[in-house]
């Protein structure tokens, strides 16, 4: 049985130069992957029977507007039932070119999750078979989960953070 430490060792052996910022908090191994290598890494993990990452749990985006050239993160959760272990992979993308290879052909379930991430964040999944909006209207011309779109009117004063002891 793998645990988080041995899994990280194995990953580092497979991809020595593309991993960074490994993190073990809350009992889940998080590894940052070079965005150009992510597809290869996931394909390797999926094919490797001794690791057994046969199940893709979740793909989602995150927007960090303040991190220059690392504005978007695409977060992949994959799950090895064989070892009862989850792995979180993150790839950071710049706002100027938010694109990453699609993993639809590795995990067919990624299809809609990638479409959803595109719909909400405008992240382009190259080689995706059908990359268009899924939950929002096709005619929409912005990506609503980006942080520049606040949910409430920014001019409202009654919900100013200063009135709640936050500065």
């Amino acid at each position, binding site marked *: 049985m793998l645990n988080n430490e041995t899994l990280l060792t194995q990953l580092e052996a497979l991809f020595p130069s593309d991993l960074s910022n490994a993190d073990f908090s809350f009992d889940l191994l998080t590894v940052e992957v070079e965005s150009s290598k992510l597809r290869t890494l996931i394909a390797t993990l999926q094919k490797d029977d001794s690791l057994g990452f046969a199940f893709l749990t979740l793909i989602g985006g995150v*927007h960090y507007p303040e991190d220059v050239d690392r504005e978007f993160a695409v977060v992949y959760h994959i799950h090895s039932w064989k070892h009862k272990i989850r792995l979180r992979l993150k790839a950071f993308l710049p706002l100027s070119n938010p694109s990453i290879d699609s993993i639809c052909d590795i995990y067919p379930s990624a299809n809609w999750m990638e479409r959803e991430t595109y719909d909400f964040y405008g992240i382009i999944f190259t080689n995706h078979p059908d990359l268009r909006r899924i*939950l929002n209207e096709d005619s929409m011309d912005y990506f609503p989960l980006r942080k520049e779109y606040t949910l409430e009117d920014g001019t409202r004063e009654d919900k100013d953070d200063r009135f709640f002891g936050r500065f």
Partner: protein
Amino acid sequence: MNKETAPIIESPSEFYNSRETIDGDIATINFGPTHPATHGIFQNILKVDGEKIISSEQTVGYIHRAFEKLAERRPYNQITPITDRLNYCSSPINNLGWHMTVEKLIQAEIPKRVQYMRVIIMELARIADHLICDSVVGVDTGALTSFFYPFQEREKIYELYEEICGARLTTNIGRIGGFERDFTPVFHTKLKAFLKSFPKVFNEWDSMLSRNRIFMDRTRGTGPISPERALAYGLTGPNLRAAGVDYDVRVMHPYSSYEDFDFIIPVGVNGDTYDRFMVRQEEIRQSLRIIEQAYGNLPEGEFKADVPDFYLPDKAAVYNNMEALIYHFKIVMGEMEIPSGEIYHSVEGGNGELGYYLISDGGRTPYRLQFRRPCFIYYQAYPEMITGQTISDAVITLSSMNVIAGELDA
């Protein structure tokens, strides 16, 4: 919209796809969005050759309510009502799953009694969820009676929710850290009555369908999926287990003391509508077993954890005591110190792995909250499952997959 792009379909479609070029006698029909047989708002554009489905294309998002965006503006306590509206057939599981996610972030120690109470409620919710799904499969195969009897029992489960939290459908049950109050004497009476009467009614209803010749002929071989494809499409829950894969979050990553209970994960063989129905029926029996074990061994103790910074104070105190009022206000407005971190927590919902991916930056609201909605992920497999089947098969396949529009569209 790119009509050229065919969905990823393997074997069954090839025969019918090749016919499209031969005789061109193809009709396009809309199944949904407001078709009585879809039991929810989703559209399928079917291409049919006579009665046979050649291909289908889904449109989802008709009731998209931007939950993930909303959650970024809401303090943690105020997100619970959002989770109600995901899979509204089993809202308590969604609520309690969210509470457990936050408790994991604040590293609260949850008393054993709370965990057992949660198990009882979550299993009741699972029974209610499966009852709806299976009775609807009955309706779609032409047995309307099978709808009424289980609904009477579901009503009793809703009365139990009402006894705990006052609500029935969108329950907003429990609190971060435990429950608002302990089980009331009325709850105990009603639960005991339910545990006594339900198995008899359930078995009677089950015998009406599960070995019924017409029902079996109608559902066996309808909408099948192989275990490999089920895995590839990310199916979870009863739908995956019907295909023969025994993945259950309750067993693989036990939460809320599920490791204390003895139960079986039923699996099917063919992954067809009949197997999905039978897996759900068996899960109802197993849920009853879990409830009996949890209720029989309900530990003494507190019904809440010791997390005064997050657990809402007693309502009576809020109205009569200034300190409690201040705390109530601060908690509801999210003015408590919350650690930053990233959490993925999942529970076994009515439809499978219901996950919460939470990123907290220490602010009053989550920085990002993503729901892993099992319906949304496994509904992708639907075109492949109905290709080569008839339109009426598509109807019962859809209802046996238990696609819930609220969960699908977030």
